[in-house]
């Protein structure tokens, strides 16, 4: 067991009361519980308030482009499978700009964890609708209400038979830390979508709104049942389930790919092998 203090304390750029603080607490708790020291983990993120999370504790990190947290995370994991790879991304970053990468990552199934901070709004650009904003929601950029249908990341992940699909809530740190731990311990691609109220720009989906609605799935729920999982993934209204929605056991990318030989970093060419390849062209 590691100590939470080992992951450091940093000044943040988040609004007071932001759900991101609780997600950060859960991340540190999960890493400590798993005894993953800072130098053995690599955090990848895009752009936005969620994407700043890796800056606020000790870890290796690659804070890249908007919507593009997943591709570098997968690239790094494929050449160094020993790294514990996590990606943190907001709903706009991950399901909007990075939507294609999200779909491809679910299908590719590289062994890593995606934590999506889902506050159903664009916070950093000051309150426009995101893919997970509910229909009818009025913003300055959508003054007549959102006309597009709401993106359902959990349903999409279940539909694509992801190995681990879970929903957490920023208001329940212990459960969230446990979900992150389970996600990491599941081989293959794991999604943890986190309900994270934006205290500044989302006046609808507030802490109070979520607290009235969220409930924890209990032991009677079987996450390996696809049909049940689809139903739970769709449940979002008066009642919103949290916990592990779906589990699967597709072989992860590295197991499936014949050329994933393990550590591919800091490894110069074997000239004898290159010559044998070259002489195939004789």
């Amino acid at each position: 067991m590691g100590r939470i203090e080992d992951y450091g304390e940093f000044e943040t750029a988040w609004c007071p009361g932001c759900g991101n603080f609780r997600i950060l607490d859960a991340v540190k708790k999960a890493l400590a519980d798993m005894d993953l020291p800072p130098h053995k983990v690599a955090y990848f993120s895009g752009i936005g308030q969620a994407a700043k999370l890796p800056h606020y504790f000790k870890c290796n990190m690659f804070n890249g482009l908007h919507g593009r947290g997943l591709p570098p995370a997968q690239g790094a994991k494929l050449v160094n499978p020993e790294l514990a790879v996590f990606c943190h991304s907001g709903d706009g970053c991950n399901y909007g700009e990075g939507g294609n990468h999200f779909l491809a990552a679910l299908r590719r199934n590289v062994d890593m964890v995606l934590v999506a901070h889902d506050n159903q709004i664009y916070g950093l650009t000051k309150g426009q609708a995101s893919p997970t904003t509910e229909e009818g929601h009025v913003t300055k950029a959508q003054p007549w209400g959102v006309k597009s249908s709401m993106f359902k990341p959990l349903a999409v992940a279940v539909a694509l038979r992801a190995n681990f699909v879970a929903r957490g809530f920023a208001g329940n740190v212990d459960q969230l830390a446990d979900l992150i731990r389970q996600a990491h311990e599941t081989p293959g691609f794991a999604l943890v979508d986190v309900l994270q109220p934006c205290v500044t720009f989302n006046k609808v989906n507030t802490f109070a709104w979520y607290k009235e609605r969220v409930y924890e799935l209990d032991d009677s729920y079987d996450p390996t049942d696809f049909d049940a999982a689809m139903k739970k993934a769709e449940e979002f209204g008066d009642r919103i389930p949290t916990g592990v929605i779906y589990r699967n056991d597709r072989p992860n990318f590295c197991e499936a790919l014949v050329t994933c030989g393990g550590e591919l970093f800091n490894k110069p060419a074997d000239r004898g092998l290159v010559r044998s390849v070259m002489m195939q062209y004789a």
Partner: protein
Amino acid sequence: MAIECINILIGGEAGQGLATVGQLLSKCLVRSGYHISVTQDYMSRVRGGHNTFAIRCSAQPVSAPLDRVDVLVALNQETVTLHKDQLGERGIALLGESIDDEGARALAVPYKQLIPKRLFENTSALGVLCALLGIDREVPAELMRQTFKKKGEDIINQNLEVLDKSMQWLRDQSPDFPALPAPPDAGREKIMINGNEAIALGAMAAGVRFCSFYPMTPSTSVALTLIANAETLGMVAEQAEDEIAAVNMGLGASFAGARAIVPTSGGGLALMCEGISLAGITETPLVFVLAMRPGPATGLPTRTEQGDLDLVLYAGHGEFPRAIFAPGDLEQCFRLTHRAFDQAEKVQGPVFVLTDQYLADNYRDVVPFDLDSLPEPVMPGESTDDPASYERYAVTESGVSPRLVPGTGEHLVVVDSDEHYPNGHITEDHGVRIEMQDKRMRKEQILKNDVVPPLLVGEEGADVLLVCWGSTQGPALEAAQLLNEQGTSAAVLHFSQVWPLVPEQYAETLDAAKKVVVVEGNATGQFATLLKIAGCFEPDGRVLRYDGLPFTAQYILERLG
């Protein structure tokens, strides 16, 4: 003619197997000791259309396409119609079933009599061609044995029978066709590859461990060559969901310490621009291969052009150093790609290899590349004595910060697309911004100190100096040789690195020439403009080509005036 050569043009629809016949014949010629240069012209469709595979063959080295055709292998009528006028005095057409000669000197090959099944037509065509060109029977026979090894003895024997019957048929016709002189290089160990394969081999020699790509003609075969050998070499090559993912995956792999390459074409590189900037600010090494084709947008997807120099020169927002290589032949494809990896690691940023469809698909014979003479690779560090105070972007005099990879020690590697402190964490401090931008830009000097100088072939002070870059090298060299034979002194200055430019390396040569003509494959003279930007130099003339076809010596000479 300057070079005693034979130009064989095989034409037909996509799907008729003309590239297969072309490759087999090319291999037979190379194994017989001849030099070859192949030019492929194909349409953007899977079946049908008009495609050609032209093999220029000589006992002397050849490095450019030729307009004249000596042997026209017509798999359909259109080939005769389109190319009969290119047939030279000694030219002959070999026609498939029921194809009209349209007045050309021709032999109708009775394939139906020579082969038991249509499947054997390629072998039969190979036999006819080998007999016409005087290739020893054992050369194609051995190739048949290798090609059909997995299919078993029966298939091999059936093919050998067709080969012999077809060779005999041609000899019975006793066509009046001149034989090539015996090759002086016969018996020398050689390989036959195209430009993209040479680039892939350069990457392999450099220790490439990761390739991410989205399929796009004419770059795809770089990735396919790596994939074919990925298991042997120990590397991952992944077809990404799009070009944006490809560049970002490559950056992730490189961040984690693996040498990574991202092959693409113009439209793909356009999509990668934000990622190129990310390589710039995160100081992550990454090698890009841009196989050019005519644009804008989809342009002529399978044809050739040198229209993307400006794109690659300015790709990405903001300012950061970069190096751009432009190989002119296969040896350069290999060596410069290898060099690109080292330069990328040395300055920790994006480096580009600029090629084009002509060179990508240009098969040539080459002496196996000398792997032992390559420099030792530049690699990132693994550990530091003081992991707690490690800073990924420590400010140094050279601008290069110590690069460690994550997970190899207790140090933490913090990388950010936002402006950052030396420790990698975000800042909006104006002073730090200036310090970091200056640090990054200082690395340009390292690139400048190490630029591959342009190659002068010929004498300083020639009447005509042809300035070219990338794949135009071969046609320019041949044009200069023809000019010299005609009594006009001519030389060629070829740039295989087009950025950064160091005018001290070439200014005197440009000044000494009586007339300087820039030869390049685009409509606006992008490199000529770059010479002006870099050294206020204005050439006396430009020979430009942008119809989608590669340069030939004849094309250049006709426009020199």
